[in-house]
């Protein structure tokens, strides 16, 4: 089930962007839905420019974790520190302004709009012209439109989706839709990119493409990436460090090799004889 990714980036010790200080720190996070304990006392950090994976079996709390970082869920206990600044309640809009962008497990694109327009929507925060200015096509609106379009075209080239630029998203195969979603997240020029199961439901070829793009994003833009995935092979190939969750608890944290040989992790994935 493992797929090999030819990553010259991983093999070479030289990284374009060396790991920086922790950009995001989660401290003793606990999240409950009524009586259901989704996350229990979870702490870990994310270094600047690293690819950090959160893995775990179904229902382990991976998506909840991502939603906490993104500000969709507010944890009952614990704190999130972003670039040394403590954030008590982080709303999604606030997260976006701070430079946190995400993709969704179930693709959340505007299905009737073209690829170009979808990615353009990701430039939302970079548009300042008022409604009237845009409606009347005043100079600022036109200049902004051109600048944003140029940024979007760069992403289109980066993700090699020139040929579907004007195709409505609904007509694209699943793998390409995922790539468009990644494009929209990149359009926000994020500092941290949260990817919720970017490889789910893909065939091997699509997975390899996606892996390459994730590595390229990290290498080219220096974007810090936090990704959730349950395909172990993929995760081990592309991540720098991995957090393992099981039943809402952290059971492992370290480099892929450390995690792979961790007895707790093996038990969680393969089961333990009772």
């Amino acid at each position, binding site marked *: 089930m493992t797929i090999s990714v030819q990553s*010259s*980036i991983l093999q070479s010790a*030289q990284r374009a962007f060396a790991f920086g200080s922790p950009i995001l720190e989660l401290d003793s996070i606990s999240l409950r839905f009524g009586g259901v304990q989704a996350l229990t006392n979870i702490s870990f950090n994310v270094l600047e420019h690293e690819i950090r994976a959160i893995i775990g079996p179904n229902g382990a709390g991976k998506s909840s974790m991502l939603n906490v970082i993104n500000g969709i869920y507010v944890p009952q206990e614990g704190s999130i520190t972003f670039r040394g600044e403590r954030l008590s309640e982080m709303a999604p809009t606030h997260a976006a302004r701070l430079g946190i962008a995400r993709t969704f497990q179930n693709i959340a694109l505007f299905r009737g709009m073209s690829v170009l327009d979808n990615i353009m929507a990701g430039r939302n925060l970079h548009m300042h012209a008022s409604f009237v200015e845009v409606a009347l096509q005043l100079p600022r609106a036109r200049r902004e439109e051109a600048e944003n*379009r*140029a940024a979007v075209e760069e992403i*289109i*080239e*980066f993700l090699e989706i020139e*040929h579907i630029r004007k195709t409505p998203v609904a007509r694209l195969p699943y793998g390409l839709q995922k790539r468009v979603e990644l494009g929209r997240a990149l359009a926000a020029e994020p500092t941290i990119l949260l990817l919720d199961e970017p490889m789910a439901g893909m065939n091997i070829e699509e997975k390899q493409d996606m892996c390459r793009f994730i590595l390229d994003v990290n290498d080219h833009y220096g974007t810090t990436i936090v990704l959730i995935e349950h395909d172990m092979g993929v995760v081990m190939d592309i991540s720098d460090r991995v957090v393992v969750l099981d039943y809402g608890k952290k059971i492992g944290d370290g480099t892929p090799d450390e995690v792979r040989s961790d007895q707790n992790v093996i038990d969680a994935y393969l089961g333990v004889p009772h």
Partner: protein
Amino acid sequence: MTTGNLDLDTFPKLLMHHSRERGERPAIREKSRGIWRTVTWRELAEEAAALAAAASERGMQRGAHVALLGDNRPRLYAAMCAAQWLGAIVVPLYQDAAADEIASSIDSAKVTLVFAENQEQVDKLLEILPRCPTVRCIVYDKDRGMRHYKQPELVSYASLLQHGRQLAAEKRDFLQAEAARGSGQDSAFVFYTSGTTGPAKGVVLTHASLIDRARVAASMGELKDTDVAMAYLPPGWIGQNLFGYVQPMVVGYCICCPESSDTMLADMREMGPTYFLATPRVLETLAKQVSLRMEEAGGFNQGLYRYCMAVARRVGARTLAGETVSIGDRLVSMASDLLMRGPLRDVLGMSKVRVAYTAGDAINPDLLMFFRALGINLKQLYGSTETGFFVAMQRDGAVKPDTVGSPIDGVELKMTPQREILVRSPGLFREYHGDSERTARAIDAEGWFHTGDAGYLGPDGQLRILDRMAHVGALKDGTPYAPRLLENKLKFLPYIREAVAFGDGRDMVCALIDIEMAATSRWADKQSISYMGHADLASRDEVYALIADCIAKVNAQLASEPALAQSQIQRFVILNNELSADDGVLTRTGKLRRDVIAERYRALVDAMYDGRTDVRFEAGGGEEAAPTDVKIRDAKVVASAQTRRAA
């Protein structure tokens, strides 16, 4: 410029000429990041000069070989001219060639400097670098992913150009002198032609021979500097080189580089080229797309399309034959042009095409007539790398679909008793690189080049090509047999991508069929046949029945021609993987390599002739060596008119 033309005997001189004469006109357009960006002749000349200045600093000398590895990009063309500016010889390689193929060309030409498009190409070059000690410098264009590469041989195009721009001013005199030192008799290019037989040969062509052929062809096509052509075929192929580099240099027209091969059709529609070169394979793909989409159209549209095409074919055939067309037909034809053919030409991006050529391989007359019926002036062109590409072409008003037209000015033709075509022309190549023995075999003492093609000149002065000499054969009963004709008929059908016919020295004709996956899978979807991929679909009985029907149609056509009735396809096999150049069974331009195929699929072919209905077959060479069961089926054979009469 009456006397000037004599001096313009090399490409750098031509480039400087255009820079002076039409400096602000577009030379190359490139779609990049969604926008068409223009390089004018003046900018192109300045870029080439700057590159030449920087390259000479890095030790590029007259007579050195410079390889190019990448897609059609303005920078690639500038690099070509910069190398020739210094008297170096350019070796354009196929950008999708595997590392080994590249290594053998680079090694044989002793290439010292390579221009590579991107990381993918650089990776291939670094892999073969230990085997190619002559390569001292690799210049790469796109820097994406390149920052991890620290090899001393690597330098980016941008930094080379920047360095060159600083040098260009102080080296002005040197550059002028270098350009002036070049003469038409210098070698300009070495093209490695894969050839359908044997390993690649390096064909050396001079500035003079290419410029001469391009001039003659340009005057025949009445090309002007306002013409526009698309640069989308592999630059390693001489056809692309002539239409994308040599002829623009001679005439001063503009070429357009599409964003990527996937966007070619949309980009072509935006630019509306007036001059168009295509290989039969490209045209097949286009025609198949049209017929597939028409099959999915509504009843009225389909009816209109069929009717209009039928009228257009009838009118077209009568016009070509020089017969009068009835007024009724003429009116219907005009109406259909407004209603159907015009819009269809527009969809294909061909509404402005004045002259279109097909070259590189024989084209099926039906395919040629399909495009002519659409109102596109598509003509066949015959030539090879060795003959400077332009040997014979169909003329306006004298297009006979089964010929390649009459010889072009300056070309002399002669046939051997075995019907091999011999060519003498100013466009002939100088030699095979580093292989004087082979050169001597190909060009005889009187200067005739032995093309290896079988053909004959008809009483109408038009040249007809049969096949490669090596492939023309006979069935066991002595009936002449030329496989390509059969294969082209098969390939015209939407569900067949490639076909390989066997029959030389045998008692009947059998064929290997490679299905067109796009069309067949759509057909399967409509029939609600579920399948697991190419191999599975190809082995389905339903698909065998579909292909059997296709072959029966071709057999019916063959039966109607007495000379071909014996060549009907009796048995066939559907291959479970695609024939591809990466496996070495096709050349990079998509021609069959029969020897390789016969060897690789020997077990299948033998089984067909042994009368078996299935065979366990193991594809040799590939990684997926797992043996699979392959079915063999009979095709319906039609009794020919002659045999029926005899019975």
